């Protein structure tokens, strides 16, 4: 059986004030995120009550914002696909980047102009 690695990532409850409009997300974004996690990673695990705190890349500014934190199991040899998924999450949720823990390392994943909506 193929080994899977744990990927944890956080999605702020609001769009980024600079990359987006700083407002709460409409329901369809959360719905699409759950649908994609089900289809691509066979589901997800979530811990209620987590909030995110992270340093904004570039400026180092500490950002503390209510977030949902999800955990998915990604195939070890398809981690690039998982990162591609996180880039799309970034674009969908209007974030500058998505903070994720992959193989124990914190990564800040940015979406690009070629990354589509979930």
């Amino acid at each position, binding site marked *: 059986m193929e080994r899977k690695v744990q990927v944890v990532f956080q999605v702020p409850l609001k*769009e980024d004030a600079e990359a987006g409009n700083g407002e*709460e997300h*409409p329901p369809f974004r*959360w719905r699409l995120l759950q649908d994609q996690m*089900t289809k691509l990673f066979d589901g997800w695990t979530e811990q209620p009550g987590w909030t995110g705190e992270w340093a904004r890349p570039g400026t180092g500014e500490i950002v503390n914002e209510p977030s949902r934190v999800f955990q998915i199991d990604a195939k070890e040899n398809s981690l690039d696909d998982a990162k591609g998924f996180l880039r799309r999450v970034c674009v969908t949720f209007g974030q500058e980047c998505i903070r994720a823990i992959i193989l124990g390392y914190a990564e800040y994943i940015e979406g690009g102009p070629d990354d*589509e909506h979930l």
Partner: protein
Amino acid sequence: MSIYRTLTARSIDPTTLPVDEQKLFSQLLEESQKSPDWVTFSVFWTKLLRDVLRGLPPENRTKHPLYKMAQDLEMRLGIAQGAVAEPDYRDYLIDRIEEKFGSRYRFCKATGIPEAELSQVLSGKKSFSVKRLVEAARALDMGLVLMPKAELTLDALSEKKPLKEAADLFAQELASVEAVAEHLKHVEASSRWKAFLKERSLLGDTLLHIEEELRNRPAQQRNEDLLPELERLRATIDASLTHIRRKLASLHEGQALGEKSKT
């Protein structure tokens, strides 16, 4: 068990589910009515539905009626708790694309709308032009409507809204009648009856107004079974009025007897 309507007005009939799944739906409803934190509810439903959904291929899990309703209840909680925005036209668009075309790719191929453009609209970076929106709506068998803003809120579209409005008005009117009754203990007998009857007439007008309002509502906002409810409310109000009238009559008699004994 009545038809479940999602935030995007999709109807799901829970009675078509197997009995054990209907029980799960009841559990979902019961839990959501306790108004838990929306994320806590998310954890609850994913755990509750795990066994039912595990047996299905992942792409079919997201189409399962229980999954859809659980997800919708979670979003309703999120909206009520101020953590999720109210649905906008994109919610309707994406839901209808899934329902009618199965994928955004197929929708874009059929309509000629570039996928990148749709993607930017969904992420809020761009908006459709009216022309494009009309094209999309036509392909989805949808229409565009301009409505008063007040009627666009979730609360206004709630089936129970007319009933709540009616109940609030009744409560207000009844309170004012009771206040008048209380006040009339201290005023002259003939004028108090006049005032009382005036109040009662106001109440009657309010009832008629609400009833008329309910009948004139667009079909999607009207719930026929509210009318019997209205009748029941009217009966309750009438019973209260009878009670107040008797109370006033006995007060009147008491006052008249008192005046008689003075003479």
